[in-house]
């Protein structure tokens, strides 16, 4: 699929005199579970609110599902949004929430929703306010998926959940996203989720957008990003000399230094140094610690960066 589920150009949002998001330009292609990562206050929620039509941009523009204006009937129809803290009507039962959501949408897969809740052990007659945090999140997610959206947007879905609930929630998301490849009946769900929790991200996301101070710092497919970065370990004294490949981040120990560099497995390793593959969490942390570094898809949607964008 070549469609972009979210595409922003120079997007900015100001609340009063504070910019929550600034000059944000990004394109999230369809067919991924894309993780929007960044520290608190990076503008993740703002970006998602703009994409689902809950907020209007102060600058620039954003389109969804291949060019639709956010909040337009077609965009609302194709996007299901689960907001932070997964709001549900506390005084309504789970069954009422299903009925309500069915009435508010053109499509609603009642059978899927009921089966899903039964599987999760959520009683239909229980008030949403009486469910545990994890169950409320699962209920909100089930309502969203039963709408059969083309794009599922999740804002900090697991921030408030305990590890077990977090795992279960992500399993539901992954099952829905995997069904896209043809198995199951949900077909065609792209997922964009924001998170400041990095654990489990590697299991969940296959596309990463790192947002920092309202700007996009890293964007790309997880496999590409991991293949194009290496962790070099060598004598601390030589750390500063190493300049053959762009260095993203330097972590110094007493005797050894760890350099996260942009390099593939085929790139030569200097004598006295060892190269290791990096994990997504490690890579993300390195970029979060270096707000000036960037890894963005170039014209060919590749893994190159302009060297000028990389700090040492």
């Amino acid at each position, binding site marked *: 699929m070549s*469609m972009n589920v979210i595409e922003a150009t120079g997007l900015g949002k100001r609340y009063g005199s504070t910019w929550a998001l600034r000059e944000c330009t990004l394109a999230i292609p369809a067919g991924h579970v894309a993780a929007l990562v960044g520290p608190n206050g990076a503008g993740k929620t703002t970006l998602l609110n703009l994409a689902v039509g*809950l907020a209007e941009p102060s600058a620039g523009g954003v389109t969804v599902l291949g060019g639709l204006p956010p909040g337009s009937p077609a965009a609302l*129809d194709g996007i299901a*949004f689960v907001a932070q803290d997964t709001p549900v*009507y506390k005084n309504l039962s789970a069954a009422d929430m299903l*009925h309500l959501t069915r*009435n*508010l949408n053109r499509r609603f897969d009642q059978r899927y929703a009921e089966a899903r809740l039964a599987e999760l052990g959520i009683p239909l007659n229980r008030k949403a306010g009486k469910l545990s945090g994890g169950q409320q999140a699962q209920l909100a997610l089930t309502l969203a998926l039963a709408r059969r959206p083309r794009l599922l947007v999740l804002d900090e879905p697991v921030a408030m959940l305990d590890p077990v609930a977090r795992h279960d929630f992500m399993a539901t998301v992954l099952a829905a996203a995997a069904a896209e490849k043809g198995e199951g009946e949900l077909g065609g769900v792209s997922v964009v989720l924001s998170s400041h929790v990095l654990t489990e991200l590697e299991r969940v996301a296959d596309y990463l957008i790192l947002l920092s101070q309202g700007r996009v710092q890293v964007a790309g497919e997880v496999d590409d990003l991991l293949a194009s970065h290496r962790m070099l370990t060598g004598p601390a004294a030589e750390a500063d000399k190493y300049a053959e490949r762009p260095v993203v981040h330097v972590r110094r120990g007493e005797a050894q230094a760890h350099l996260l560099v942009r390099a593939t497995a085929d790139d030569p390793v200097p004598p006295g140094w060892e190269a290791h593959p990096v994990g997504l969490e490690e890579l993300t942390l390195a970029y979060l610690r270096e707000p000036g570094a960037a890894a963005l898809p170039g014209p060919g949607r590749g893994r190159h960066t302009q060297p000028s964008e990389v700090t040492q």
Partner: protein
Amino acid sequence: MTALTMPARPKHDAGLRPVPWRRMAWVTWRQHRAALGGVAALLGALAVYLWLTGLQIHHSYATACHPASSIACTINFTGRYATSVNVVRVFLQAVPALIGAFAGAPLLARELETGTFRFAWTQGIGRWRWTLAKLVLLAVVVAAAAGAFSVLFSWYLRPFFAAGYAIPFATDVFDLREVAFAAWTLAAFAIGALAGMLIRRVVPAIAATLTAYAGLALATALYLRQHYMTPLLTSKLNLPGSAWIVSQWYTKGGKFALPARGSQIVNALQHFCSSSRLSPAQCLSQHGYTWWARYQPGSRFWPFQWIEGGWLLALSVLLIAATVWLVRRRAA
């Protein structure tokens, strides 16, 4: 960075049929049945009270008041029920305000306060349709309930009008009658909805609704209502009891002499009429003063009801439109 190429808009998005309006009926009922139940309980309890006491009042009037001006009527009817009708009409003044505050104000304020608007406003139906459907449905229901209730109140009042204890134009009765009562309830609801959208918190929105409603009702009763139609001018002393005297004064020799209130008239009455058994106007006319009055004749009661109902309806439509416009524009 370069943005990725933007593909053509998928075809199946064109000609998308919106979610049918009628689906909002269930949604509105399910989400607001507690508020509607509250309105029904309030009006229902009052209706039962008015019905039971009204039967006694009608019976008492029928036995004591022939003729209506008799002393028996004054003692056995007016004397007995004056207090209760006065309490009822003061209490009923609060009913539209309560409906506005507890059914209107939380409608959007609660969604905004608890964050559920992020759920509701991202559903396929779209947020302005969601808002418009809810507001219109609930507004029609509360206005109709209030209108039906005020028919009963009019029946309850009828003996007091007949006995000359109150006139339909009386400030604290006029706005409790059919058209006006429905319209005031509608306006209170619309004020509440807008206040909820603007303030975004339930309790402050309720307070603002009560304040705004009281201000509007007071300004209307004291300053606005008397100007709905140009008052008639008369110097005849035999004005029918149903007339609503808007202003009165005295002239002498064709010139303004006395206002109808204040120390001047008190002095004049003490001077000329301290031993007179006549009414002030009759007594003063014997001393060369002419009494003048601007008044609204009792026959204008229904035109006034419709005028008040009309502008309140227009105001309510405007407030609801403003609320929907705000929802459409000013989101998170």
